[in-house]
């Protein structure tokens, strides 16, 4: 113990080491604060829209109730969905700055609504956000390099190496002590702000421990690399330059090359194709016999097939039926589009096993539920909610039940998951 405190005193006497550790702590704390501010803002926005949404619904109900027409009610009622940030979202904002976390849908064709985006400034999204995952993935290795590159070579250059090696009882345990001390302090500088933020955000303990484990593993990887390079017995300068080069390749160059390769090998043109096809299918309904549309609709939804037949007059049930048939006609394209995105995501995760920078980023965004999988899960929740909306309005539409003012309050409401 006294040896360790002695080493600690020695380490902290070096101005650079102290500065580096303080800087890591400062950056980690700032990134946690920035992430928490962003998550708080997103929570505020979600809270803020609720009364506005209710007011909008009431305004529609005000005039649409007079018609008592369920079709009018369904056509004009927009229903809000939202994706509440998880407790850990502050640590890795992931896709939450570019993908919508609020989306309004109505009971019409979903495929024309699901891919709508949120208004955001792309110039702010371009460089990426300043969150804990950024500090960990990009900056931490540089601090590891700063603190470890001269662990042995520094002593050699100071002419103390032979003496240290000759000291009885030191040898390996000396270096182990120094590595553990520097690594431990780095871990503390990173994990302390993170843990404080996590406790304030009510992150479940297993998740927090996983993140801390990830931090420790990533640190261990980079310390391992620096020690390996250190074994080459080069000068401190050569060590530092080599390590910075390795960092450059692993965190900046290889991920960008992998990105191009993945997008090239796995195309996802179906996104645009499916919306074009869906529009074509929906609008074609105006040019074909209405009975054809109804037949196609009842084939998939026999529960409504006893609905009274259409007359010459316009009936909203036909309108909603062709929207649904339009959605169903592009189902294979929808699946292909989604598979393409998932395949890209899976490929990137695979690369994460080779590139620790990518691996840690992927693991963190997964734990924080801010990655592509979380995005797709939100889309699934919207899909399920939309299904409920359809069924709700169909119960009136296909049985010609008048839609009263109270019925507006009976519409399903979205349950925002955390």
């Amino acid at each position, binding site marked *: 113990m006294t040896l360790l405190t002695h080493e600690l005193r020695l380490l902290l006497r070096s101005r650079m080491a102290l500065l580096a550790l303080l800087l890591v702590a400062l*950056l980690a704390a700032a990134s946690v604060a920035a992430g928490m501010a962003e998550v708080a803002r997103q929570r505020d926005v979600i809270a803020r829209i609720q009364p506005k949404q209710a*007011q*909008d619904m009431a305004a529609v109900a005000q005039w649409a109730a007079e018609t008592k027409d369920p079709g009018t009610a369904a056509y004009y009622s927009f229903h809000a969905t939202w994706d509440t940030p998880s407790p850990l979202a502050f640590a890795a904002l992931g896709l939450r700055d570019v993908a919508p976390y609020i989306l309004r849908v109505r009971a019409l064709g979903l495929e024309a609504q699901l891919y709508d*985006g949120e208004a955001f400034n792309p110039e702010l999204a371009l460089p*990426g956000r300043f969150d804990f995952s950024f500090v960990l993935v990009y900056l931490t290795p540089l601090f590891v390099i700063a603190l470890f590159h001269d662990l042995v070579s520094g002593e050699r250059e100071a002419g103390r190496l032979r003496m240290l090696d000759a000291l009885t009882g030191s040898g390996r345990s000396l270096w182990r002590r120094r590595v553990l001390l520097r690594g431990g302090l780095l871990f503390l500088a990173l994990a302390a702000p993170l843990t404080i933020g996590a406790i304030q955000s009510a992150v479940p303990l297993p998740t927090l421990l996983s993140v801390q484990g990830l931090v420790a593993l990533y640190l261990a990887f980079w310390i391992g690399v620096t020690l390996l390079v250190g074994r080459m017995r080069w000068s401190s300068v050569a060590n530092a330059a080599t390590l910075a080069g390795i960092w*450059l390749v692993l965190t900046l160059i290889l991920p960008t090359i992998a990105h191009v390769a993945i997008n090239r090998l796995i195309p996802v043109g179906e996104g645009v194709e499916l*919306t074009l096809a869906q529009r074509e299918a929906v609008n074609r309904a105006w040019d074909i016999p209405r009975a054809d549309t109804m037949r196609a609709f009842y084939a998939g939804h026999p529960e409504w097939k006893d609905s009274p037949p259409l007359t010459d007059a316009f009936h909203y049930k036909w309108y909603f039926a062709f929207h649904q048939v339009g959605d169903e006609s592009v189902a294979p394209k929808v699946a292909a589009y989604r598979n393409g995105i998932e395949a890209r995501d899976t490929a990137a995760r695979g690369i994460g096993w080779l590139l620790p920078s*990518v691996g840690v980023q992927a693991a963190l965004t997964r734990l924080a539920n801010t990655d592509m999988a979380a995005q797709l899960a939100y889309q699934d929740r919207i899909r399920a909610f939309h299904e409920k909306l359809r069924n709700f309005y169909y119960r009136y539409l296909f049985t010609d039940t008048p839609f009263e003012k109270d019925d507006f309050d009976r519409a399903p409401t979205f349950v925002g998951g955390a």
Partner: protein
Amino acid sequence: MNAITLIARDELRLMRRNRVTVIAFALLTLLTLAAALISWSHQSGIAETRARFQAQAAQEFTAQPDRHPHRMVHFGNFIFRPLPLLAAFDPGVDAFTGNSMFLEGHRQNSANFGDVRQSSLLVRFGQLTPAFVLQVIAPLLLVFLGYGAVARERERGTLRQMLVQGVSARALLLGKLLALAIVAALVGLPALAAFLLIAGQPGALAGPMAVMVLGYGAYLALWSIIVILVSALVRRGRDALLALLALWTVLVILLPRVAPDIAAQTHMLPTRLETDIAIQQDLHRLGDAHNPDDPFFTAFRQKVLRHYGVDRIEDLPVNYNGLLAVEGEKLTSRLFDDYAKRSFTVQQAQSRLTDDFGIISPAIALRRLSMAAAGTDLEGHRRFLAQAEAYRYAMVQQLNQLQADTVRYADDKAKDAGADQRKRISADHWQTIPQFRFKPATTGDLVEASLPGLGLLLAWLAFALLALLPVARILQKARA
């Protein structure tokens, strides 16, 4: 031969003899060429896809059968944002914005299917483009090659020797700087070659390209000076390297991330949901189309009847429903424009705040210059959105006018079995609606937009050059 060129030649010879230096340099050259090639093929792939989809959408629009014009208002049109030529060099925000848009009546849809929402997380690690290599990686190479330029002489004691022998510190610094600047020029050469390849394409604009060459040149020169300055000021080579790495991290990696965060928290954007609701409320206030006694629409009806000198809308020579649609679209479009302008004012304030960080980070200043000159910045996206909205409005109003002029009011109201056929007008009309043509920014627009960034960079350069003087004086004293 004077002292400066002698020193520069000596330094260059030393670099040439150093295997690591040569390898690093060769790797960067390869990376630049690979980036240029990949980016070029990637961007031309995107351009080709978008052109294909655009042609398909146009074909589908004109291939629609005889229809009621209002059906075409809702069939709408898809448009795709074409890429500017220089996007192959700096794609800017292209991957982060939707690039296709569905245009229809009385709705303003978002631009969808941006790359960022359909790519893996790797897209957030940056994109391998010549711009990325020059902005981020080239300075790092200059750091590696130049950190020891002066510090090494000091460590070995050769610095004092030279000063004693009458070489002025200023000549020494300028000589070392000249050597590093030559390396910087060589680093920029492959990118320049890629750039000239783009310039050979039809439609390339000379003005913005000249600004870009100037900007990237100034940036690399600036880093050369920074490296030499730090190398001269710091006692040991290792400290110089670490200090420069720290500086690079802060200026190139950290600040470009911190600035947008501050901007996003300072100027908050309303969500689309809120904007949509606000527009609905405003519309409701202006006139309630669902209320038969609404004062606004009653006044409109009176005005139309007076204009045509008739008492009943049934007696009008035009279809009243068509006129109503034109009037309604006018109302909503005005609101769309109004809210879009507000949203862009906020976004511009955000971007401006980020740009101001260019005062402390030349990388931010260069990025601003580069995207603005390439036409791939926020303004480039806004240009697309504004033209899309103008096109949407013209298309919808042309269809509404067709409804007023060619569909009889009595047919429009009729609900009998044959009414549907009588409401339809010939598909030939769809041909008369012009296709969307994106008007790219002019040379003047792009150059003007890139000037603030260039100004900042040149100010940085001037400042760094001036800093050489006091540093030379300090170095001179090292003799004593």
